[in-house]
């Protein structure tokens, strides 16, 4: 299709869809309404299991199976990226040139780095108590490591980042989630059941299996994001077209 026909077809479909969706919006319940039956049940169930952050209870207890799927998507896409961005036969690696980093940038990066790492760990650890959790903390942790690239250079990053190690840790964390799920089954209740004591409300060990699953996710996400970024950095910085020199 030419660009004009394409735009015409899209306008046709888009107008229809817009009419449909706007009409649907006017049938939706009022924004801010009080009708949330599932939400109310979830809050009650979360309090009954001594999990202060309801979102954590939904993600790692009540709807933990969704999180299993979500974690698998992350795992699969990291594996997929590793496969898709592999070094092909007609490519070679070129070591990047050492780069000069402006002193203020370096100081800033090296100052922020430990703070960011600690923040990431804190956010993971308090997942069942305060906003945050494995996903958020994991991403923060992984991106924090990459401040090294900004602050020092690519080779410094590579030294603390053996990608193979992170790949294995990623897979092990994902299997830990699954094994915890199966443990519920073995313990006689059900897959992904919360079979541990629920602990004291509002403490780090509350919520039964929630903190454990949360920790597994935190490790999985952190490692997965490190590997993901490593693959893209590899492509952007190291891999070049042409045979081995």
């Amino acid at each position, binding site marked *: 299709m030419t660009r004009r026909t394409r735009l015409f077809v899209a306008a046709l479909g888009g107008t229809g869809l817009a009419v449909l969706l706007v009409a649907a919006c006017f049938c939706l319940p009022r924004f801010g309404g009080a009708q949330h039956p599932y939400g109310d049940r979830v809050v009650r169930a979360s309090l009954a299991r001594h999990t202060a952050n309801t979102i954590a209870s939904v993600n790692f207890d009540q709807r933990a199976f969704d999180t299993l799927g979500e974690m698998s998507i992350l795992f699969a896409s990291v594996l997929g990226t590793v496969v898709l961005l592999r070094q092909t036969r007609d490519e070679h690696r070129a070591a990047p040139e050492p780069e000069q980093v402006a002193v203020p940038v370096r100081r800033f990066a090296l100052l922020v780095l430990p703070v960011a790492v600690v923040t990431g760990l804190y956010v993971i650890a308090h997942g069942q108590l305060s906003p945050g959790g494995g996903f958020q903390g994991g*991403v923060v942790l992984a*991106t924090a490591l990459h401040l090294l690239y900004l602050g020092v250079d690519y080779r410094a990053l590579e030294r603390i980042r053996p990608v193979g190690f992170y790949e294995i840790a990623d897979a092990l964390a994902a299997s830990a989630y699954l094994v915890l799920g199966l443990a519920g089954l073995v313990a006689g209740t059900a897959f992904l059941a919360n079979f541990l004591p629920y602990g004291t409300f509002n403490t780090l060990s509350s919520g039964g299996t929630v903190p454990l699953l949360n920790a597994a996710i935190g490790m999985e996400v952190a490692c997965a994001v490190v590997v993901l970024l490593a693959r893209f950095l590899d492509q952007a910085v190291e891999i070049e077209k042409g045979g081995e020199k």
Partner: protein
Amino acid sequence: MDDPLIVVALVLVAVSATAAVAVRDPARQALVLAVLGTVLAVLFTVLQAPDVALSQLAVGSALTPLLIMLSVRKVRRPQRKKEADR
């Protein structure tokens, strides 16, 4: 709907989403997407969803734009080399 903060955040989201589409250069789009991610995080905070806001901040305004920037760098690199050869 009485909260003006929500209205402002929503308008900002709509504007930055439109900008993210209208900016045709992918490197600039990455920056606009980072802005969109931040604005969305603000919206989620005022909608009382701190968990989502936090992950949107980490993913939407850091990770995704970073991936796009790295892709742009990779895609543009051979071209730059060719120009240098000439």
